């Protein structure tokens, strides 16, 4: 209940900020000047606040519990993305004056066609990124209180859509920077408390895991999604009312929202294709994508997607515009690496503690709730309740911060790039898009947040990343080349994801290349862009168009608040 209140209060505060703006901001002399004097540190905190989503707050620890220590490659890639951003994109993107990737497409290549195509890609990326946010909000609410899953999803969607439709997120640089500090504290303090309170035996078990083969005590398992159990030793479990349920050897289908209590000492049933927490495969610090083996290929696939995908995330790239000039944008990226690095030291703590304290969550299909489930395992008194509430609040802060930015980016893409005359009103678009995402999230309960988000990164890495990198560093890129490369990357990556979701089961290395297609879709997009561009001729202004992205602003001029901006007139 307290956790529900914590979530409600975070939602309410966001609503209030959205509707009223912050009182403190209204009294400062001139926020608009301030926004162009945002220091790199403040902006980096805002970037991190926007970036740390439910996937980072809950998803990574959940994946560690489910897939093993190798899942820690995800946050490594998430942080490494900002090195790529620092080297390749930050300063030139700021100097282009473009605020979004569709803007950049038109500014660098003068192609309205490419602008529309990139707006479609923004929608795909935002969709893949938003669905897990809403899903995780619903799942967490259903675990900490007793509301059904759909209620949480609808509530989350309503909160985000209302906030945006009523006023956007005002004074967002400060809000997002504050959100980052909030998330950092709400993530680190409970982690330290958990480690200190858990006791020596749990700490020892966490660093020396044993395979989860037998239930150490009577364990109730509430299946959050449809789960197929593979029973090797016949066992008699009980329903919550105490009626015995005999599970014979073989597979048993468990419907969602049913609960079984497994007796102490019984052998843990297996869940198809997932290694048991604590087993030898679980301990290996490499990724086993799609249960297919080939750990190096799986790790590489996730690294490429997360590192290169970061450059093309529509809600993040817009933040760099708040920097006064290219130099400050570059500093922002560098500081972001440091801020994220602090945060990403801690998912591992939740993951390994979860494998000891709540390993049954992997049976329930609810590993994403491990972070919020942990405090009650350590302390059932007020402390446990308090820390559950803190973590739930942090998870909602993470979910809201990312969702607001993404939904606004997606609505902007529809209302201004795709259908400038048609859908017109931004508010209508926001509500319509939020409804679509809520509907999608209702059917996505069984998909892990970390996996879905990585798909968003994969699409970004296969479309925007080649377009930005070649647009900024290769003068010969033509509009036709960019269009065909983005199209090839979009079709290939979303096609592979669709096959994974709806297609036949495939095993071996082909399964990895379908589940995490970045290792071939990214080179495909780059190659298509280069080859098609080489067949055509870049316009005469192509070279100056590229070079001006690398021209440092005159620093005495930028101190007077001037900056290079897009070559467009009103």
């Amino acid at each position: 209940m307290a956790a529900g209140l914590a979530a409600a209060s975070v939602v309410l505060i966001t609503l209030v900020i959205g509707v009223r703006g912050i009182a403190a901001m209204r009294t400062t002399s001139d926020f608009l000047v301030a926004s162009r004097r945002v220091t790199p540190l403040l902006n980096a905190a805002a970037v991190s606040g926007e970036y740390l989503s439910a996937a980072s707050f809950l998803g990574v620890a959940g994946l560690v519990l489910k897939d093993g220590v190798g899942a820690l490659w995800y946050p490594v890639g998430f942080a490494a993305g900002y090195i790529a951003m620092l080297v390749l994109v930050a300063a030139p993107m700021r100097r282009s004056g473009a605020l979004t990737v569709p803007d950049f497409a038109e500014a660098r290549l003068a192609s309205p066609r490419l602008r529309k195509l990139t707006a479609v890609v923004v929608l795909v990326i935002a969709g893949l990124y938003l669905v897990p946010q809403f899903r995780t909000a619903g799942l967490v609410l259903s675990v900490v209180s007793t509301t059904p899953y759909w209620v949480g999803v609808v509530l989350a969607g309503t909160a985000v859509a209302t906030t945006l439709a009523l006023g956007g997120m005002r004074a967002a640089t400060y809000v997002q920077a504050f959100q980052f500090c909030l998330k950092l504290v709400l993530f680190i303090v409970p982690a330290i408390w958990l480690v200190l309170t858990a006791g020596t035996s749990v700490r020892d078990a966490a660093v020396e895991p044993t395979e989860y083969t037998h239930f150490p005590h009577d364990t109730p398992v509430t299946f959050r999604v449809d789960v197929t159990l593979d029973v090797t030793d016949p066992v008699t479990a009980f329903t919550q009312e105490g009626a015995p349920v005999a599970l014979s050897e073989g597979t048993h289908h468990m419907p969602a929202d049913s609960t079984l209590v497994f007796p102490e000492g019984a052998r843990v049933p297996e869940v198809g294709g997932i290694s048991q927490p604590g087993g030898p495969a679980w301990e290996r610090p490499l990724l086993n994508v799609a249960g297919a083996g080939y750990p190096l290929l799986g790790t590489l696939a996730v690294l490429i997607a997360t590192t290169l995908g970061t450059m093309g995330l529509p809600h993040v790239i817009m933040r760099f515009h708040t920097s006064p000039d290219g130099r400050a944008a570059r500093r922002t990226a560098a500081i972001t690496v440091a801020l994220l690095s602090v945060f990403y030291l801690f998912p591992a703590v939740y993951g390994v503690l979860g494998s000891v304290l709540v390993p049954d969550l992997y049976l329930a299909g609810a590993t994403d709730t491990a972070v919020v489930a942990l405090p009650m395992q350590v302390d059932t008194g007020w402390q446990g309740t308090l820390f559950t509430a803190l973590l739930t609040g942090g998870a909602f802060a993470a979910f809201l911060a990312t969702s607001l930015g993404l939904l606004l980016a997606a609505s902007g893409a529809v209302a201004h790039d795709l259908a400038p005359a048609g859908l017109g009103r931004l508010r209508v678009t926001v509500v319509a898009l939020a409804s679509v995402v809520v509907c999608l999230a209702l059917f996505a309960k069984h998909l892990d947040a970390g996996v879905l988000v990585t798909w968003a990164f994969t699409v970004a890495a296969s479309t925007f990343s080649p377009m930005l990198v070649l647009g900024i560093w290769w003068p010969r890129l033509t509009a036709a080349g960019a269009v065909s490369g983005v199209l090839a990357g979009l079709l290939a990556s979303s096609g592979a994801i669709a096959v994974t979701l709806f297609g036949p089961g495939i095993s071996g290395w082909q399964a990895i290349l379908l589940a995490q297609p970045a290792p071939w879709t990214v080179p495909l997009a780059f190659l298509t862009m280069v080859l098609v561009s080489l067949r055509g001729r870049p316009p005469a202004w192509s070279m100056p168009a590229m070079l001006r992205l690398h021209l440092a602003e005159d620093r005495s001029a930028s101190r007077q608040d001037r900056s290079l901006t897009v070559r467009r007139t009103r």
Partner: protein
Amino acid sequence: MNRTPSGKRVAVMSPQTRLARSRHRLRGQWRMPRLDPGDTDRALRAYLRQRRRGAVALTATAVLLLGLAVLLALAPALTEVRLFGVRVSWLLLAVLPYPVMVGLAWWQLRRAEAAEDDPADHRTGRADGHIGRAAAAGADR
């Protein structure tokens, strides 16, 4: 709401909101990018220098991350070795990459800024050499 010195009320909002609401005002005729001859030389030198330095930093990052993955794949014995009671292979993945990446980012930032600070590049003419700031008002506000 906020007031500019002239007393006009201005909505205070995030760059995203500002952008989403004002982009339709920004759309206009696309103008061909132009560079002064002096700026072209300066930009070309900056571009080549940044490209060289950037390539080195990216290679270093790739070698670090891929090297770590290969090391963990080829040396499963690292899982048996303990440091402070924790498996070395876990520490290598959960802790080591972050300080190294922060170091790399810092190093590359220094080099990129040093490349920009080359005195040979400093503009000799007047400070107002902007390529185009016609839309500055719309984009920044």
